[in-house]
């Protein structure tokens, strides 16, 4: 007992001796917080041009610092998580500058990036980081692909969004490359990791980078089985961005989009014997892959990542405009209208029809209206639909008609000079993914040929569908005999 008391007393004494007055040498200062502001919108720059950002830095405690600065650039894919930290670094970030303001050339490949700006207070080592989205555009970042026959040879030109015309982009980028065969069409495929332009001649398909038109491959190498000779080609990516499809001679070939995996285009899609699809692709979130079989006169569908078509079950319901499994008509054209409703023009022995399909619906059959009040519809093969109004434009010779789907009648909205032939007709509109543009669905783009020169016209539209001011807003010339036009959408 006594020993315990001695030990306890010793401990207490030791603890008390350990106490001493605090020196109180500390100063409590407020932490300097930085507020950094820069461009509110995405920074857009053309490759090799200068990226300029002059951020404004406001200190909460005036006179703090000095500061050090760091500008890093990286892709979202290079990031392990939402923020770069010492334990969570971007795998391949690159330091662009250590100056306060950024002024460096954009030497990275075209694409979307994030710029991270880090300001470090050298006195406290406290850091503040902000990020700015950056898009580096290639020279051919967005615009119209104009496929023409010039002196019997394929010539692809590019009308950039800003109005700059680049003739013969393939020849310019690939001096030794010759496209063999009769030119037919060009399509862009833009999606994550997919930035291609596919060009078809009657001898095959050629693939190019959409950013600089460098050659990246051709058929038959890109296919498991030959597709030539090519006729009535089409190319599309489905709305879920899983698959790419090529149509030739009524056959369909598929491959995954690069973000899903790399393979050649498949053999001809499996499907009902003798199918022959019209070269137009429809896609929705109930029916991912829809084609119309002009041989079987019915729709065919497939799910994504499938290389086999199924037919629809026979419709036994009343009140349905038509039976997807047995339409009994021949498709001659079509385009996507509002709310993923596709307007297709069909014919039978006696009449022409406006058929609509809604692949977002479990019951995709829309309307099947006779086009009795559509002048010259029997001569039309070129169609373009508004994505916001139920309006379908069609061209016949030098005339453009507007078919009002709800009123079921057409009216003439534009006439080119006699001797001018409309060669293609497209509505300026986005894909069902990607960036939007305020001009979408307000501009009809028309390619013409007058026997000596191909021209491209922008016809701006009024909400009722008529041509604003009764004339074109822009015109580009100097092309060969234009065969087809298509839009090269901006990279994602």
């Amino acid at each position: 007992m006594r020993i315990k008391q001695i030990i306890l007393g010793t401990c207490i004494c030791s603890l008390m001796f350990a106490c001493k007055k605090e020196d109180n040498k500390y100063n409590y200062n407020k932490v300097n917080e930085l507020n950094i502001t820069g461009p509110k919108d995405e920074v857009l720059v053309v490759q090799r041009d200068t990226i300029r950002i002059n951020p404004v830095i406001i200190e909460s405690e005036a006179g703090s610092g000095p500061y050090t600065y760091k500008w890093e650039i990286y892709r979202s894919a290079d990031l392990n998580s939402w923020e770069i930290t010492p334990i969570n670094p971007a795998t391949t970030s690159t330091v662009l500058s250590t100056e306060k303001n950024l002024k460096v050339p954009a030497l990275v490949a075209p694409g979307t990036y994030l710029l991270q700006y880090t300001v470090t207070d050298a006195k406290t080592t406290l850091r503040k980081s902000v990020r700015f989205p950056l898009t580096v555009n290639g020279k051919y970042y967005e615009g119209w692909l104009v496929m023409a026959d010039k002196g019997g040879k394929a010539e692809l030109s590019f009308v950039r969004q800003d109005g700059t015309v680049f003739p013969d982009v393939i020849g310019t980028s690939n001096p030794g490359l010759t496209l063999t065969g009769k030119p037919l069409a060009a399509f862009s495929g833009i999606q994550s990791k997919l930035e291609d332009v596919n060009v078809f001649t009657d001898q095959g398909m050629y693939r190019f980078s959409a950013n600089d038109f460098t050659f990246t491959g051709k058929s038959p190498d890109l296919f498991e089985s030959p597709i030539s000779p090519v006729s009535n080609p089409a190319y599309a990516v489905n709305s879920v961005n899983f698959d790419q499809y090529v149509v030739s001679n009524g056959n369909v070939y598929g491959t995954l989009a690069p973000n899903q995996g790399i393979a050649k285009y498949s053999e001809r899609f499996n499907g009902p014997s003798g199918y022959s699809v019209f070269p137009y692709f429809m896609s929705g979130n109930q029916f991912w892959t829809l084609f119309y079989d002009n041989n079987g006169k019915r729709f065919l569908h497939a799910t994504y990542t499938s290389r086999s078509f199924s037919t629809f079950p026979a419709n036994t319901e009343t009140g349905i405009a038509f039976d997807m499994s047995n339409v009994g008509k021949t498709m001659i054209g079509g385009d996507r209208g509002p709310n993923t409703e596709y307007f297709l023009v069909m014919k039978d022995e006696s009449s022409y029809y406006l058929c609509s399909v809604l692949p977002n619906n479990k019951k995709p059959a829309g309307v099947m209206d006779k086009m009795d009040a559509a002048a010259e519809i029997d001569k039309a093969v070129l169609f373009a639909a508004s994505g916001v109004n139920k309006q379908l434009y069609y061209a016949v010779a030098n005339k453009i008609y507007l078919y009002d789907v709800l009123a079921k009648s057409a009216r003439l909205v534009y006439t080119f000079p006699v001797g001018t032939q409309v060669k293609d007709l497209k509505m300026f509109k986005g894909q069902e993914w990607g960036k939007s543009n305020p001009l979408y669905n307000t501009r009809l783009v028309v390619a013409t040929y007058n026997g000596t020169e191909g021209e491209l016209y922008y016809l701006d539209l009024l909400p009722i569908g008529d041509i604003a001011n009764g004339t074109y807003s822009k015109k580009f010339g100097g092309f060969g005999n234009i065969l087809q036009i298509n839009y090269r959408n901006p990279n994602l």
Partner: protein
Amino acid sequence: MKYLSIILVMLILASCKKDPEAVFSGKDGITFYYKSGAEQDSVSYSFKFNKVPKTRDTIWIKMRLVGKLSHQPRKIKVLAGPGSTASLGSHFILPEISLPADSFRVKYPLVLLSNDDLNTKTVRLVLQIADSEDLVVGTKGQADMTTANTVQFKVNFSNRLIKPDYWSYIAYYIGEYSAVRYQFMIDVFGTSDFRPDTKGGVIGYAQWVNIKGKLRNALDAYVSQHGPLLDENGAKVEFPL
């Protein structure tokens, strides 16, 4: 007694000292090994896989050292272990091999023989590592993040088509296994190796998407000429959409 306790505690505390650096010592061992996830401790083999008929074939099984390198070759001993139904001499040969000098890996060349009785049955060989004069049985189990050691390696083999060990990983694309289905695939593609890239092969997801379409086309062609393709159980062979 209390003083004794205090003294004991002090002695115990005084006996603490820094742990010496741990260094492995003991006889060096040898094991089979495989990539975790992508590979397994077993493999299937059919002489029917070969386009050119063979009466014997060699399977190479990966082995590695558990221990220190040596400048001398060291003998490895492999036996047919419990559970084997294959017979030494008529179904397989176990060559004597050594781990080469200054090597920590070697491939064991198991020789399989195509005996006539394999036309009607499948046999199993359980390869078992045994102690040799140079190398003992190594430590089994997960060796690092990507590989595992094993001291037994199983080989199932036959002259008939045999269900590949990876089939469950590709059944989603091509359906459940049957010998007729598998033979049809071999006939269409001219190969018996459909090992997916997730199991040590080369066929990736993008290729599988195309393979099933090609098989459906080939089956349609077959059916139009010969009628439905029935498997060994009488079921109609079909391939997924």
